[in-house]
């Protein structure tokens, strides 16, 4: 398993926030075609590759957006070409892409298959729910085209699961959503709470509270247990189950190592995790800079000190072994806060206690 290192896993935005969709809750809105202004240039891509491959043996590039496929297939051919010399030196490189799938074509699937990319798709459940929030700029729902893309990926054997945004539109329909995914044979799932992380638009009508999210995910856990299909993977739930059983599967939100993840924008600038989009106090440098200089950036040092204080603060909690201070964004009112928000803690504990009690009822923990 890859060893933890600060600034080691890049979430790359090759076309900044540019997207062909205009989802209601997106935090990176931008439309139109990629131009020189918002597209990652080859020299930046080369510098990005070298920056992250130089100092570690296992590297995962997460291609994100906006819509990362807008960068074009030639961009990714170039990315793989720049990675090759590092692979020849023994580096193990993984490429993951998170797409809305509407631009997937047989040419893309062939490329992903050949180059061994992992492909995740954003889908918010059945058409009625999905189309209310994930649509084109002219408000046409994207569901039909997303499913076409998923089927292409599935046909090529390279569909690696979905992220489902949980908002006021769908959070009360956990059973319907779970049944939908199972009926579509979509069995690798992640549920992400829609929350305000500095959006351009007012999305207050779509955000759900920690309590609402806990209610949702607890119901999903019960449904998962009831279905009892080992092929169904729900990452957050399985992470908590594993940790309670003494394992070590950890979603990033349970690592307490948020400084591992950084966002690299099209111009090469390196910011903290994408949960803090373009936050001035979390800019660490640029891929063109010397990596030692970036890793000793004062903003990074302050962030790391805060993470340490948070972990220490949570050590006294019975559930600290799971959350390790929790998500740097979800659990705290401010970036500088060291004490998590009560509402978040209460509901995380309720979620952990629910899973723990169900496991104990089978005599397993």
């Amino acid at each position, binding site marked *: *398993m*890859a060893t933890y290192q600060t600034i080691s896993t890049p*979430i790359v935005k090759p076309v900044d926030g540019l997207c062909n969709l205009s989802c209601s809750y997106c935090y990176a809105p931008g439309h139109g075609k990629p131009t020189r202004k918002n597209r990652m240039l080859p020299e930046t891509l080369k510098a990005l590759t070298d920056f992250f491959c130089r100092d570690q043996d*296992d590297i*995962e590039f*997460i291609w*994100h957006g906006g819509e990362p496929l807008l960068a074009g297939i030639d961009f990714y051919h170039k990315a793989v070409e720049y990675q090759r010399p590092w692979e020849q030196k023994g580096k*193990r490189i*993984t490429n*993951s*892409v*998170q797409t809305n799938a509407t631009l997937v074509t047989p040419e893309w699937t062939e490329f992903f298959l050949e180059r*061994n*990319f*992992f*492909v*995740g*798709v*954003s889908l918010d459940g059945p058409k009625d729910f999905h189309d209310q929030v994930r649509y084109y700029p002219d408000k046409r729902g994207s569901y039909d085209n997303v499913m076409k893309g998923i089927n292409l990926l599935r046909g090529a054997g390279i569909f*690696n*699961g*979905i*992220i489902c945004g949980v908002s006021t539109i769908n959070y009360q329909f956990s059973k319907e959503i779970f049944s939908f995914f199972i009926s579509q044979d979509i069995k*690798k799932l*992640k549920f992400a709470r829609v929350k305000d992380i500095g959006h351009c638009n007012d999305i207050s009508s779509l955000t759900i509270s920690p309590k609402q999210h806990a209610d949702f995910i607890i119901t999903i856990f019960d449904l*998962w*247990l009831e279905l*009892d*299909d*080992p092929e*169904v*993977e729900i*990452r957050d739930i*399985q992470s908590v*189950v*594993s940790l309670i*059983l*003494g*394992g*070590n*599967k*950890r*979603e*990033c939100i349970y690592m307490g190592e948020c400084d591992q993840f950084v966002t690299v924008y099209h111009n090469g600038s390196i910011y903290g995790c*994408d949960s803090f989009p373009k936050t001035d106090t979390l800019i660490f440098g640029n891929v063109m800079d010397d990596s030692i200089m970036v890793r000793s950036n004062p903003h990074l040092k302050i962030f790391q000190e805060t993470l340490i204080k948070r972990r220490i603060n949570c050590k006294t909690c019975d559930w600290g072994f799971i959350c390790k201070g929790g998500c740097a964004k979800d659990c705290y009112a401010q970036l500088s806060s060291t004490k998590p928000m009560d509402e978040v803690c209460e509901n995380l504990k309720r979620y952990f206690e629910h899973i723990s009690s169900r*496991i104990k*009822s*089978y*005599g*397993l923990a």
Partner: protein
Amino acid sequence: MSNPTLRAVPKVLLQAKKEATIQAMGKKDKSWDKAWDKGPWDKGHWANRK
């Protein structure tokens, strides 16, 4: 006489227990090797980690 409250343990929990035990022992399950060698723990769907 069997305990009426005792229920069959769900397969998903048995699998999780097995994996957790293997991890705690610091060993790799053979079926995981390919994914472990490629990167993080969860058999390739960190594609959509964020």
